[in-house]
């Protein structure tokens, strides 16, 4: 197991005061909170920050961590001796209070193995302010655009934290066969009644909420129910108009390209977006593709174009501009 340098994570010195640690944590937390940040690794960065602050922001835990840290270096193999922490007493909530790690915020699930080895399960979830007991669970699932176009069954694997007989939290794989409704959009939720866990012994099981995410598609961009696709056209097609084939998630369709079309123009195919009431639209976003002038006939064609457009001034500023 690798020793984790929580001071480096929070960008503070080992001698930092509690206030300095708090300030640095807050600043970094605002930067990397997954609800605010668009950094690609925001979620994992924030988890690291939360874990580091959970330790360094707590005087007892910080002292215990420093004690271990004096005997280990970051990046080196770290192996806590059995029972090393028996001398520490943490003021956290006792066993049996674990409320399902994936249910709440970004910071409280999935402590690193390093954290678990140091502080064990008793320290989990301490920072959480009186979570209401509930058996409702949350998870995110990632589906393809085509799943939303067609709907249908998808087999979904979830990792569920469970407490085993020894009181350790283990992740169990759980497979669900879920019916994806046609036309579902990113950010929407499916509720699977009774697929959570009981809030208390003997209580009925809570519900499982699945938040929908879409895997990025190489060609299509989703905007609510509308689908956007880039369509390159030849200069003469844009200038003179043409009938062009446009690929949609539902297959290819013929589309009329009006004469005088310009790059960036959006052509709408009504009802060809995500299905629903109303169905979304598909927008073809035009770009002009220039053929290469790498043969003599091609160069002659461009020269002829230049001769035909002697008055064309592509860089002339519009008259109304300052």
């Amino acid at each position, binding site marked *: 197991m690798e020793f984790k340098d929580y001071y480096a994570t929070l960008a503070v010195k080992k001698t930092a005061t509690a206030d300095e640690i708090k300030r640095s944590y807050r600043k970094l937390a605002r930067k990397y909170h997954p609800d605010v940040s668009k950094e690609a690794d925001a979620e994992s960065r924030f988890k690291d920050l939360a874990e580091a602050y959970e330790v360094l922001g707590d005087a007892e835990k910080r002292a215990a961590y420093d004690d271990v840290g004096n005997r280990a270096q970051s990046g080196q193999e770290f192996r806590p001796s059995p029972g090393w922490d028996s001398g520490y007493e943490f003021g956290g909530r006792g066993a049996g209070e674990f409320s399902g790690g994936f249910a709440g915020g970004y910071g409280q699930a999935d402590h690193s193995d390093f954290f678990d080895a140091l502080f064990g399960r008793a320290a989990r979830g301490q920072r959480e302010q009186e979570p209401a007991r509930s058996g409702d669970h949350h998870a995110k699932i990632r589906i393809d655009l085509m799943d939303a176009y067609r709907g249908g069954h998808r087999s979904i694997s979830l990792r569920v934290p469970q407490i085993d007989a020894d009181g350790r939290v283990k992740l169990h794989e*759980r497979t669900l066969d*879920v*019916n994806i409704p046609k036309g579902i959009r990113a950010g929407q939720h*499916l*509720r699977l009644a009774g697929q959570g866990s009981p809030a208390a012994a003997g209580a009925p099981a809570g519900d499982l909420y699945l938040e929908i995410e879409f895997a990025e598609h190489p060609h299509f961009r989703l*905007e609510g129910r509308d689908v956007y696709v*880039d369509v390159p056209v030849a200069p003469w097609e844009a200038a003179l108009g043409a009938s062009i084939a446009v690929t949609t998630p539902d297959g290819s369709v013929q589309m009329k390209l009006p004469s005088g079309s310009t790059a960036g123009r959006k052509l709408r195919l009504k009802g060809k977006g995500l299905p629903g009431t109303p169905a979304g639209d598909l927008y073809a976003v035009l770009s002009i593709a220039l053929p290469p002038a790498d043969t003599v006939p091609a160069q002659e064609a461009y020269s002829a174009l230049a001769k035909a457009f002697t008055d064309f001034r592509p860089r002339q500023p519009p008259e109304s501009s300052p």
Partner: protein
Amino acid sequence: MSNSNLSTMRVVLVEEELQFTLIELGHACHAETQRLVELVEEGVLTPSGEGLADWRFAGVSLRRARTALRLMHELELTAPAVALVLDLLDRIDGLRSRLRQAGLS
């Protein structure tokens, strides 16, 4: 772990088919109802109905409430601050969406 059988599982699209009472939304968000009442008072959540017992939250409230509660807890924000943050995030989303439509992101 059990493999659950779909024939016994009722799947509901929350945003289109579901309304929450205050208690139900509290369960779904793992939050004290008092927290949600604060968010209603700040206009972050807008239930229909008069009085707490009759409040009904539209399905879309689930996402908004969870985001608000996460921000309050993890960034230690007050309810008025989170109301401002959510409004600004909505505006950023709107601007981002216009960039994406234009193929600029």
